[in-house]
């Protein structure tokens, strides 16, 4: 049954138009991944308005391909320029950049792209198998279960996200508060608008994403005074083939990285810890572990496999539950709503063409992606040789265009600037931005789930514990929320040993 659906999906994904769309998405995505200040989330946000006139399946293929491209592009800057484009590419710089400086950039890039592909492919296969099952289970979910899952989503930012858990919590709460601004559709009352009519429709998270990630990121990078001193790519067919001959040796690292990536990835914020964890494990188990950090091929394979497995796995909760696992998935979810689709488990029954076309396009997109990036690396690397004084204003203009086009509103461009400044300050003070964006997106859904649950129980919070599924999920969520407190007590009890265990999680 599953195979039939998948075959049907492939029939949709490999139409010439959709393949062309995927190719455009990959190319743009890789460029976006290479450019400082533009990552997957705001790249998708900026291009979203262009998809309004497209059929939904082609639109989602464009946006997901853009995401794959951005994931690949992150590796290029990490390896050649020692600049991680995204947080989950940080671990790739550890061995990737030393390799590039030794003149082995070609090998490092080939290994990175191949590992990304392997990790992604592993996750896609698991999504193909598990997504329909998960959607089936989710169909039986009521409001308490959905609220419980949302709680779990946010608790994992606090408990597993690293950094200051209090600041993660503040980010989440602020995101929900911003999400509550505007018309309350249940009671028809205006909330937190203070008489400003423009605030009636609330804050659009797409504008917030463009501001927080796009403008905020560019402010951070000009502050650091980036000068791109890149290593040469040294990429040709012989190098690719030669590296491919060596790679099967690291099959254990591939398997380990894929599992870590998928497991961490379908929980929010998972890609970054997954890449570090995979790196740490590879270093621990490798016979050449002491050579890590000096330019080991395995040190590139490990984080890249896990990061991509996690990046793809983040799509699983989005298509099955309607709850995005990452800011990029959140923007895509916003797209789904704009294209007139109802995200959630019903999607599998109501729009099988869309869901299976999307899943099949993950296969085609990643195959296309690895070929494109391998072939055009020097071209992409050349983008970073464009003078910074041209790139910076160009990115600001592109962000402004994207912010305006969402609702054709000048107000949104002003909001983008304000969110940009906020993003800069928050990033510097270690307030995480991803949970803020997710809370802004999920605000209405979470509030409605909570309201309906409370109406069902006539105001008693006990309902979340009385139903078996939500009871288990809420308990795990509470455990995650308390995890920072528990670990600090544990450490004090053990006699204040250093943060050795925390180092792996980071």
């Amino acid at each position, binding site marked *: 049954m599953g195979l039939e659906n998948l075959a049907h999906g492939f029939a949709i994904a490999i139409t010439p138009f959709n393949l062309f769309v995927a190719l455009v998405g990959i190319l743009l995505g890789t460029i976006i991944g290479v450019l400082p200040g533009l990552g997957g989330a705001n790249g998708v946000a900026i291009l979203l*308005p*262009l998809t*309004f*006139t497209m059929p939904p399946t082609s639109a989602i293929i464009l946006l997901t391909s853009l995401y794959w491209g951005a994931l690949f592009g992150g590796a290029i800057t990490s390896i050649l320029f020692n600049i991680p484009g995204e947080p989950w590419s940080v671990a790739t710089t550890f061995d990737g950049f030393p390799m590039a400086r030794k003149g082995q950039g070609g090998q490092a890039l080939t290994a990175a792209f191949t590992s990304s592909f392997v990790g992604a492919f592993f996750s896609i296969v698991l999504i193909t198998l598990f997504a329909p099952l998960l959607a089936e289970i989710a169909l039986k979910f009521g409001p308490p279960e959905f609220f419980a899952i949302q709680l779990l989503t946010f608790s994992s930012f606090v408990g597993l996200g690293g950094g*200051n858990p*209090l*600041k993660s*919590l*503040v980010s989440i*709460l*602020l995101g*929900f*508060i911003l999400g*509550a601004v505007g018309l*309350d559709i*249940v*009671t028809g*009352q205006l*909330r*937190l608008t203070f008489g400003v009519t423009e605030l009636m429709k609330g804050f659009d998270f797409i504008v917030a994403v463009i501001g927080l990630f796009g*403008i905020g990121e*560019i*402010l951070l990078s*000009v*502050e*650091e*005074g980036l000068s791109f001193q890149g290593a040469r790519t040294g990429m040709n067919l012989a190098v690719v083939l030669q590296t491919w001959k060596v790679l099967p040796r690291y099959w254990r690292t591939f398997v380990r990285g894929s599992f870590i990536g998928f497991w961490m990835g379908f929980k929010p914020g998972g890609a970054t810890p997954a890449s570090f964890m995979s790196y740490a494990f590879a270093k621990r188990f490798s016979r050449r572990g002491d050579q890590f950090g000096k330019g080991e091929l395995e040190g590139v394979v490990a984080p890249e496999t896990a990061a991509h497995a996690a990046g793809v796995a983040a799509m699983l909760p989005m298509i099955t539950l309607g709850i995005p696992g990452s800011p990029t998935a959140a923007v895509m979810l916003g797209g789904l709503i704009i294209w007139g689709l109802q995200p959630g488990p019903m999607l599998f029954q109501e729009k099988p063409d869309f869901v299976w076309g999307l899943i099949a396009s993950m296969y085609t997109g990643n195959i296309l992606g690895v070929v494109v990036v391998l072939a055009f690396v020097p071209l992409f690397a050349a983008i970073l040789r464009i*003078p*910074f*004084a*041209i790139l*910076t*204003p*160009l990115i*600001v*203009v592109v962000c*402004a*265009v994207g912010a*305006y*086009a969402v609702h*054709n509103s*000048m107000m949104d*461009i*002003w909001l983008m*600037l304000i969110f*940009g*400044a906020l993003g*800069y*300050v*928050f990033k*510097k*003070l270690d*307030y995480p931005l991803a949970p803020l964006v997710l809370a802004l997106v999920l605000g209405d859904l979470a*509030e409605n789930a*909570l*309201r*309906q649950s*409370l*109406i069902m129980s006539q*105001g008693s919070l006990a309902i979340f514990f009385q139903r078996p599924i939500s009871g288990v999920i809420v308990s795990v969520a509470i455990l995650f929320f308390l995890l920072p407190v528990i670990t600090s007590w544990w450490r004090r009890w053990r006699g204040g040993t250093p943060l050795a265990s925390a180092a792996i999680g980071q």
Partner: protein
Amino acid sequence: MRAADLTTALVLVAVGVVVIIDALRLGVGWGMEGPQSGFFPFWLAVGMVVTSAIIVLQALGRTTTGVFATREQLRPVLIVLLPATAMVLIMEGLGLYVASALYLGFYMRWVGHHRWPTIVVLSIGIPIVTFMVFEQWFLVPLPKGPLETWLGF
């Protein structure tokens, strides 16, 4: 760094208090349709006030030497941010295309010290490409001003 941390947390406490006041106006209890409009924002804001207050206490108890941003770091940030603000102001009157051309040209000249031919070609070329892609190809209208009207769009 500590001062910035304190200020931000205090601002967040203030925001929380404002939200609480507005939530109380809307009602935070049980109404006709279940929880009232202020219910959800109220508890969110209470949470934020408490958490931010703890962050304030943490910051007070810590002595750090780092600064939020040095003068040398802040300069390029403002060089991006202030002209960008000016661009959005100009956009209100002249439209996005003219405003972005001016902004691109200004930044390239002032920060990058590029040669005039480069500046002219890029700062006029980029808005034209944007126009082709958005208005012509994908039919997404962007803010236009007197120049576009004069050209007949």
